[in-house]
């Protein structure tokens, strides 16, 4: 089993056994800054090698998918899950957006197996983080009189920490190029897997802390938190095929579609849709979907992408 998964399980086990192990919050923040910058820089360096215009249709396709996913998730939750409008919209936003760490795990999975993929795929993370959140909030506000201050919200979403670091990393990587970044690479690239491992340990602690909330609605959450990702992975893989990605890149896009945001979405939804219960969406995203994706989803989505490419090919 991949070591990063083992680190995750160690975190889960420590938390379930009520160990006093915890990573200091500033270590969590530091590691996530490193991860986001590393993913962005790597993507930016590769982006510079692409003919820009060829990427435009890909980008549009990916954004379209990002707008579509929450529109699919919402009715599922609202009418099958029988949740109120706010919680439905909140879940739609979380699952419409993406999880960068899940992406990092998928990336490491490909790199370990030397499977070729579009190395600028970090761009997709940036493109997919926001649309799902915006659509989710719109869904919550449909037909409500009490308004949202859209300006402030757009500011918070577009200038959130993760977008700034990812997009900033992309820009720096793009401008500076691989050679100038080589000495920095020893921190950002060579240590990537180690940093990811530490981060997964923390994710295990955090995810397991949500299991209490999961238990309160176990049936719904487990079904929702595993079936929706799998369905979204199919959509993501088809989208990847349609925009012309390689099997590796298709798997990354499938993983992104299948992943649920647990940083940008919660922060934005908490302010824009206060009526939604944050425990519910975090229980789903962190307590069910993240572990599912990391333990079973990532290999599954690789298989799926290969199969779809095989069928199409």
């Amino acid at each position: 089993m991949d070591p990063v998964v083992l680190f995750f399980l160690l975190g889960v086990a420590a938390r379930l056994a009520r160990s006093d192990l915890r990573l200091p919050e500033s270590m969590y923040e530091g590691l996530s800054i490193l991860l986001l910058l590393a993913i962005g820089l790597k993507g930016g360096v590769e982006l510079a090698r692409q003919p820009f215009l060829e990427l435009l249709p890909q980008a549009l396709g990916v954004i379209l998918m990002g707008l579509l996913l929450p529109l699919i998730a919402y009715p599922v939750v609202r009418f099958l899950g029988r949740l109120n409008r706010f919680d439905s919209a909140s879940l739609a936003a979380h699952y419409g957006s993406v999880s960068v760490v899940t992406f990092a795990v998928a990336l490491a999975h490909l790199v370990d197996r030397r499977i070729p993929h579009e190395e600028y795929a970090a761009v997709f993370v940036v493109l997919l983080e926001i649309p799902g959140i915006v659509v989710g909030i719109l869904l919550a506000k449909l037909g409500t009189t009490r308004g949202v201050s859209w300006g402030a919200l757009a500011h918070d979403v577009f200038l959130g920490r993760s977008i700034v670091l990812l997009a900033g990393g992309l820009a720096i990587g793009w401008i500076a190029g691989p050679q100038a970044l080589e000495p920095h690479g020893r921190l950002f690239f060579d240590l990537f897997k180690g940093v990811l491992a530490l981060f997964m340990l923390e994710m295990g602690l955090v995810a397991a802390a949500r299991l209490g909330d999961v238990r309160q609605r176990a049936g719904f959450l487990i079904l929702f938190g595993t079936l929706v990702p799998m369905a979204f992975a199919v959509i993501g893989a088809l989208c990847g095929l349609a925009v012309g990605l390689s099997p590796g890149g298709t798997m990354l896009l499938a993983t992104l579609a299948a992943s649920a945001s647990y940083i940008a979405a919660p922060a934005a939804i908490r302010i824009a849709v206060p009526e939604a219960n944050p425990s519910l969406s975090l229980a789903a995203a962190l307590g069910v979907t993240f572990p599912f994706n990391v333990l079973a989803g990532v290999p599954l989505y690789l298989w799926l992408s290969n199969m779809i490419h095989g069928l199409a090919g």
Partner: protein
Amino acid sequence: MHPRKLVVIVAESALEKVLTRELLALGAHGYTVSDVRGRGAHGEREAAWTEDRNVRIEVVCEEEVAQRIALHVKERYAEHYALVVYVLDVGVLRGEKF
């Protein structure tokens, strides 16, 4: 010593930015913020990661402003957010500051 009020708000960290802005609008001349963890009706918030943290905001102000702040926070945020507010009597030397 001049009598003033000390308003303490403990709330989930997502509210820090809006709350501090609104405090000034409601007439406070300053505030002090610290990162805390805790437990209440919304369960444990253990500051294991960013979204799981509380902030403690402290405002020294005139009684009237204190009333306004407490009421505002209660009406606008108490229903949907994890938070508590309480008010104490304090004495200050430089009355003009608060």
